[in-house]
């Protein structure tokens, strides 16, 4: 039948277009992924020798052909092709309906009219593609791996890691050659502290600090300034040997890094604090925790600090060390305690001399020191110290308790601060309160009349912002009213 032939031709034409588009589509996808594989092959072309470009090209060709084959063998149904034709030429589902109904036996009279109408429109169709080209997302990025593959194919092979350990012998031989040329300069340079040395732990540096602060300290101060001094070589004759010698001297001085000032420990931390840190690092100074080994380390540290000069506890520390060497731990402990007391006194004297008020002095009302267990003042760990508790060490304090006994002040009144009050009858019932304890004896630092207005405004703002529960509004207002009445 001529009519159905025309429709079938149209559908076949569209189906062929669809197949072509599918071939393009899947070939691009295949080429993209094959290109990625080709890039990998070309990246390792050193291992593949001359085969890499050939293999890469082959993989790309196989990928593209495989994709094209896959697109070609995918089937396009007649209904799909008809619908695509309808959409492509704006036929409003005429072709799909005509193709659907053309083969039915029970078709009504309007179906013939539909087929005739459809044929008429199909014959007048402009010859253009029904299936538009759809470039896959991965196909859009195809130029990237393609260009990469091209670059890798033209570039020299990327050296591959050998997988064996580096040849230290060979490099050592290479390094010996400049040494022969330039004398001892590079020998000294190699003797510089290695990076491992530079990463020594702070405690280790502190130990070395004792050495640098030792007997040759006065002589070394001139040498240290020489490190930073302008040598003004321009005024001298060009003498390469002397230049090398001066350089060697400088390097030697730099090697003695422990003679440089330890800024952190010397200027921001007192010796007493350093000792405190050291004791914390060793696990604390509680009598039940301290061991002879810890005691010895603390005394060594104390001795080291004492060698810096100006320390009046050095003798005690030395005595403690002697006692420890003789196996007398108790004597060693007592010597350390004395040394610590002196260290603390010296530290506080130094602070007072600088016009700085320590937290302890503040809390004691300016120098009214009581020799009791301190505590409570200071916030951070640096503000903490051993305290002066004589009960800290067993047998040395007033109490045998490791925690010591309560102070006199606490014995007299166990509460620092308290509030007492009584109800007051009046137009509005109220409650008068007074503070008791030490805080109650201190005068208010704020003038009542100066702040009451401000507090009242804050109260009104809080109520207006609804930050106070509604049930409490009246109570708060009454309170402020009562203040006015007083």
């Amino acid at each position, binding site marked *: 039948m001529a009519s159905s032939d025309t429709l079938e031709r149209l559908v076949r034409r569209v189906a062929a277009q*669809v197949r072509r*588009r*599918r071939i393009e*589509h899947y070939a691009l996808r295949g080429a993209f992924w094959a290109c990625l594989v080709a890039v990998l092959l070309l990246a390792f072309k050193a291992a593949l020798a001359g085969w890499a470009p050939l293999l890469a090209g082959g993989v790309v060709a196989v990928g593209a052909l495989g994709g094209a084959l896959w697109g070609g063998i995918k089937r*396009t149904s007649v*209904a*799909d092709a008809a*619908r*695509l034709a309808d*959409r492509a030429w704006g036929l*409003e*589902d*005429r072709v*799909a*309906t*005509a193709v*659907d*109904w053309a083969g039915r036996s029970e*078709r*009504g*009279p*309007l*179906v*013939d*009219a*539909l087929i005739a*109408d459809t044929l008429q429109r199909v014959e007048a169709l402009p010859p253009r593609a029904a*299936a538009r080209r*759809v470039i896959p997302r991965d196909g859009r990025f195809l130029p990237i791996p393609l260009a990469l593959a091209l670059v890798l194919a033209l570039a020299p092979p990327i050296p591959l890691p050998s997988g064996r350990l580096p040849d230290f012998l060979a490099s050592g031989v290479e390094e010996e050659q400049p040494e022969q040329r330039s004398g001892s300069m590079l020998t000294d340079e190699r003797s510089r502290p290695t990076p491992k040395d530079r990463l020594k732990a702070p405690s280790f540096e502190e130990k070395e600090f004792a050495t640098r602060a030792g007997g040759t300290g006065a002589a070394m101060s001139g040498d240290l300034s020489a490190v930073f001094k302008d040598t003004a070589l321009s005024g001298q004759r060009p003498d390469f040997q002397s230049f090398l010698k001066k350089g060697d001297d400088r390097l030697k001085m730099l090697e003695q890094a422990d003679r440089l000032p330890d800024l952190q420990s010397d200027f921001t931390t007192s010796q007493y604090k350093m000792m405190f840190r050291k004791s914390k690092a060793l696990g604390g100074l509680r009598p039940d925790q301290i061991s002879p080994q810890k005691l010895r380390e603390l005394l060594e540290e104390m001795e080291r600090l004492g060698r810096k000069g100006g320390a009046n506890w050095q003798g005690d520390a030395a005595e403690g060390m002697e006692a420890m060497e003789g196996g007398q731990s108790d004597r060693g402990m007592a010597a350390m305690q004395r040394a610590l007391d002196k260290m603390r006194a010296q530290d506080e004297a130094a602070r007072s001399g600088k016009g700085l008020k320590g937290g302890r002095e503040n809390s004691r009302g300016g120098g009214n020191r009581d020799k009791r267990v301190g505590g409570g003042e200071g916030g951070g760990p640096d503000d903490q110290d051993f305290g002066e508790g004589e009960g800290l060490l067993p047998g040395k304090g007033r109490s045998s308790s490791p925690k010591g006994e309560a102070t006199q002040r606490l014995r007299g009144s166990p509460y620092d601060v308290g509030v007492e009050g009584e109800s007051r009858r009046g137009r509005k019932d109220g409650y008068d309160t007074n503070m008791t304890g030490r805080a109650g004896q201190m005068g208010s630092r704020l003038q009542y009349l100066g702040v009451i207005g401000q507090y009242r405004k804050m109260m009104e703002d809080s109520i207006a912002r609804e930050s106070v529960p509604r049930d409490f509004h009246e109570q708060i207002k009454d309170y402020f009213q009562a203040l006015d009445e007083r």
Partner: protein
Amino acid sequence: MTQDTRVQDFIAAFEGLRAEVEKVIVGHREIIDHVLIGMFAGGHVLLEGAPGLGKTLLVKTLAEGLELSFSRIQFTPDLMPADIIGTNIIVEDADGRKHFQFQQGPIFAHILLADEINRATPKTQSALLEGMQEASVTTGGASRPLPSPFFVLATQNPIEMEGTYPLPEAQLDRFLFKLRVRYPAIEELNAIIDRTTQVRPVRVERVMSGSNVLAFRELIREVPIADHVRALASTIIMATHPMWEHSPESARRFIRYGASPRGAQALVLGAKVRALTQGRFNVSVDDLRALAAPALRHRIILNFEGEAEGVDTDTLVGQVVERAEAVTVQGKEAFVR
């Protein structure tokens, strides 16, 4: 008579009737088209809109353009079913014998205008149920057929809800389309003022008889529909159901009950009429898209969340159609799958 001639006659009749209505009604072209599509599809139409937008005038004008009987019922809370259907009264014959005689109510007309239908009680509203579905009424144990064609056009006001009785779902489902009459644009308003405040009598011609309407209804049912278009119609209906696996998220969230199979019938029948009015012998996907909202908006029942959020059923229907098209592989790149 060839099929082309029949279709051309239909198009001419449709356009002639529309032209007659447009002599009186300004604007509302889409509403007029949908009313006519509903009439030719053999269904009933519910018009919803604020007072004064010309709903009643539209129906009256349409009745004037057809050589058909027309009756109008103003629904009020005290209206009774007998006032619509009719009642048996005792009459005395020439021999002096008395017997019951059925006095037909206003429902016995080709075109029935049920004005403000939601003002009557559900009992009275239900009097229309049988007539709308079966084109007959049963009274006194006897079933009485209604004149053919029988076409109910009901109006309701969505604003004044005080003292009204919303139509039950069963009643709503019997309307082929629910049309929303919107406020006219300013140009249309100017034309309305000109047309209604000057002495210029408008005469509406009768352009179609009842037999023509019935013949066209038969023609419409012959319009073929392709499998994929029919499948899309079914998918649209299914996608209005919240429990269906492919329903859009909005339908799952806001719909309590989806459209019934009557919705699918309404959609396809309306699409067939629309296809013929455009000179096409087949139903297209575009026809379904165009008629989905009037055919389905009153068949979708929102849940509490949908009501509370004020979800527009037209928007929901749009999303349902979009989802249904995606499910039935209408995508442009379907060929590469």
